[in-house]
């Protein structure tokens, strides 16, 4: 295994706090959007954009770039925050999120936002889209890889499993799917709305290489990606156990913050918590 330095981990942790602050500010400013699922996916997105993905912010459509596909489109605040921090567009633009004439739509739009690779919002289409990308990469004998982040609510969608079958049929080992297993969807706990467990066994039954990790532990995230890279002949599904609203105490594991922004008072509290975290680095 490649040595992962303390310095790298510290840098990623710090960046993730910066992204979380953006998520809170963006959704507060819009007074809408989906902070909970953005915060749960934040560490996965941070690891990918700030250590793994071969992308070029000055040339967002570079043909040989790695592809990041956000299937759970409602979590786009974390994507926009990562893209802005990575230099795809100015950080100031984040405050236009969900506003009229903005490049940062309420759900991702292809072709409008530099760095955005897919349109999502209606759930369950992103993994199929990723299968198409991975097939194209293989046809052209390219090295670029495809990473898809799915929500656990999306495991309800039939098309997710259509895609799972197709990816294993074609043995797409350049495809890695992260399942943001925060356990909460719009109307409640996933296990109450539509029980998913045993989830890892489901993906294994679809002939994927399956890993289960703590989705907030950077060492585990990076190790999982490395294992996915080493895995031949099968796509890898990383079931990342996460906490909805992760990083702000009063938002954690709260169904409400799936699709609700913070109030003015909550904003102050949330930012104070995140800034205290930042100061500790």
């Amino acid at each position, binding site marked *: 295994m490649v040595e992962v330095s303390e310095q790298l981990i510290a840098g990623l942790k710090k960046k993730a706090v910066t992204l979380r602050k953006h998520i809170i500010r963006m959704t507060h400013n819009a007074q809408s959007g989906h902070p909970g699922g953005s915060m749960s996916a934040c560490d996965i997105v941070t690891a990918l954009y700030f250590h793994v993905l071969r992308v070029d912010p000055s040339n967002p459509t570079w043909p040989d770039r790695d592809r990041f596909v956000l299937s759970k489109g409602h979590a786009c605040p974390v994507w926009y925050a990562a893209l802005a921090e990575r230099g795809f567009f100015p950080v100031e633009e984040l405050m236009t999120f969900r506003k009229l004439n903005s490049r940062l739509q309420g759900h991702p739009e292809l072709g409008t936002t530099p760095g955005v690779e897919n349109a999502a919002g209606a759930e369950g289409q992103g993994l*199929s889209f990723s299968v*198409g990308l991975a097939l*194209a990469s293989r046809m052209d004998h390219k090295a670029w890889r495809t990473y898809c982040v799915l929500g656990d609510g999306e495991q309800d969608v039939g098309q997710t499993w259509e895609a799972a079958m*197709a990816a294993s049929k074609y043995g797409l080992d350049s495809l890695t799917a992260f399942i943001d297993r925060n356990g909460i969807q719009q109307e409640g706990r996933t296990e109450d709305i539509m029980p998913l467990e045993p989830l890892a066994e489901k993906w294994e039954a679809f002939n994927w290489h399956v890993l289960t990790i703590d989705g907030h532990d950077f060492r585990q995230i990076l190790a999982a990606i490395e294992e996915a890279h080493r895995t031949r002949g099968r796509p890898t599904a990383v079931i990342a156990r996460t906490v909805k609203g992760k990083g702000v105490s009063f938002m954690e594991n709260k169904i409400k913050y799936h699709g609700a922004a913070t109030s003015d008072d909550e904003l102050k509290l949330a930012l104070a918590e995140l800034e205290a975290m930042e100061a500790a680095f």
Partner: protein
Amino acid sequence: MVVVGADTTESIKTIEFAKAFPDRLFQLGIAEPNMISVAAGLAAAGKIPFAATYSVFGSAHTYNVIRQNVAYTNLNVKIFCSHAGLTVGPDGATHQINEDIALMRGIPRMTVLVPADGPETAKCVDAAGAMKGPVYCRFSRTNVPTVTAAGDGFTIGMARVLRDGFDVTLIGCGIMVARCLEAAATLEKERISARVINLSTVKPLDLATIDRAARETGGIVTAEEHTVVHGIGAAVASAIAANHPVPIAMVGVQDVFGESGEAEELLHKYGLTAEKIVEGAHDVLKRRDR
């Protein structure tokens, strides 16, 4: 160019493509939403994917996938669907989609093609492949008489006048173009001169040709193997209403589901015949001259 399929590659003949290019056809099983999104992913990486299956699955079953993953993204996906309309025949109403033109023409950025015969279908494949952006093309399973010539020009967005006339215009698409020509021949015997237009591009609509027909002939009959709700009749009616209103009659499926039967039997029972087009022309002329 690549092809994605959904367990219908033999019946719609995309298997022939796989024989020539075995690595370029992806058989994705009975999973059309996945098929459309996979096509979108392939297009996003620079391929020109043709997604081909039966119309009912390639349009209605996949509508929101097409909307979000193909049209909203403005990707270069070509959806080519056979088995459209009543003439699927004995399979019955579940397979006879008469609503796909309505669905597809409502989606922004979508080009909608309905070729009249075999040679025109081939031209649609070439033209769709050559243009950038999403295309939906629908055609029928049944045998149709050839009404266009291999040498005829074909441009997406241009309707072709197949027969000139000055008393009334018959605008058809798909299998109904041949019936419009048949109706025009009948009308000629009655000394009614009918213009026949092949509306093989439903969207974008050739407004100039339709407007000219309204102004020069003063009455229009549309004919489609599709519901008259939001089909080509509705498209032509809104175009002429906005420019030069003239009486219009719509031959098509009258907001009902089909049933099992042979193609010709169904066309007769549901009023998709040359006789009905002639009746439509009489009705239009009566209203115009009132």
